[in-house]
């Protein structure tokens, strides 16, 4: 992940790296045990009812899912690798229409790397995006950000220019 990740753009994956001012054990715990406390459930959820919490079941084969305010659960995928406090692989089985499809199986690998007693580097890779088939690029743009920025600025420029010309 270090170094050349930018030059070799893998169209089937999105990679993110961030530095978190927290010990590895806490980073792991917050990610896995307190998922519902930070996941942007108001934006990223799939159930019909508003989501109020989210969970990762702490074992290989466990589910990760959101809980709606009506008590219903909506699964996002499964735990593929469970190696506390350093490595977690989850499947993301939400299709391009934001519906659960247990056969989709894109993968999210999250590594928690201890840089010091108070700093953890978190590396995330969302891969196997080719499983979105024809909609891979669209989904890659959603998971990544640059595409959206570029599109927004282009849209904004076009609108602003159109308005100025009137």
């Amino acid at each position, binding site marked *: 992940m270090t170094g050349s990740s930018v030059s070799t753009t893998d169209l089937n994956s*999105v990679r*993110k790296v*961030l530095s*978190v*001012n*927290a*010990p590895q054990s*806490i*980073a792991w*715990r*917050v*990610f896995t045990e*307190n998922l519902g*406390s*930070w*996941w*942007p459930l108001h*934006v*990223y959820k799939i159930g019909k009812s508003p989501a109020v919490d989210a969970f990762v079941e702490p074992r290989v084969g466990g589910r990760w899912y959101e809980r709606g305010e009506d008590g219903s659960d909506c699964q996002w995928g499964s735990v593929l690798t469970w190696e506390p406090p350093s490595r977690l692989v989850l499947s993301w089985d939400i299709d391009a229409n934001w519906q659960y499809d247990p056969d989709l199986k894109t993968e999210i690998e999250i590594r928690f790397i201890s840089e010091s007693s*108070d700093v*953890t580097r*978190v590396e*995330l890779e*969302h891969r196997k995006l080719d499983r979105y088939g024809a909609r891979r690029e669209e989904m890659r*743009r*959603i*998971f*990544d*950000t*640059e*595409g*959206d*920025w570029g599109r*927004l600025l282009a*849209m*904004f420029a076009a*609108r*602003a220019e*159109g*308005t*100025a010309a009137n």
Partner: protein
Amino acid sequence: MLLAERTLDALGDPTRRLIFKRLKDGNKSVEEIARGLSVSRPAVSQHLKVLKTAGLAVVRVEGTRRIYAVDTRGLTALRGWLDGFWDKTLMAFKDAAEKEAARERERR
């Protein structure tokens, strides 16, 4: 998504951008907002209505006056639309993990 797109549309107009900028300095009446602008007061009211629909302006009634101020919802929606899925999610995670680490340090 809809709110973010309405927000973009609303800010695509130069007069509305100017009006929105004026709202940033605090609560203003239509008269105050229109001062010095080359558009009529009804036109300013119309622009304010669009800003309101786009989640960029809020209005409250004080006696006979309508007072306008910035509404942050439109900007928040725009921000959410801009950030990619993982950028937004990981930033939220970083924030939560760092808060938890700070709480833990206090406990020690």
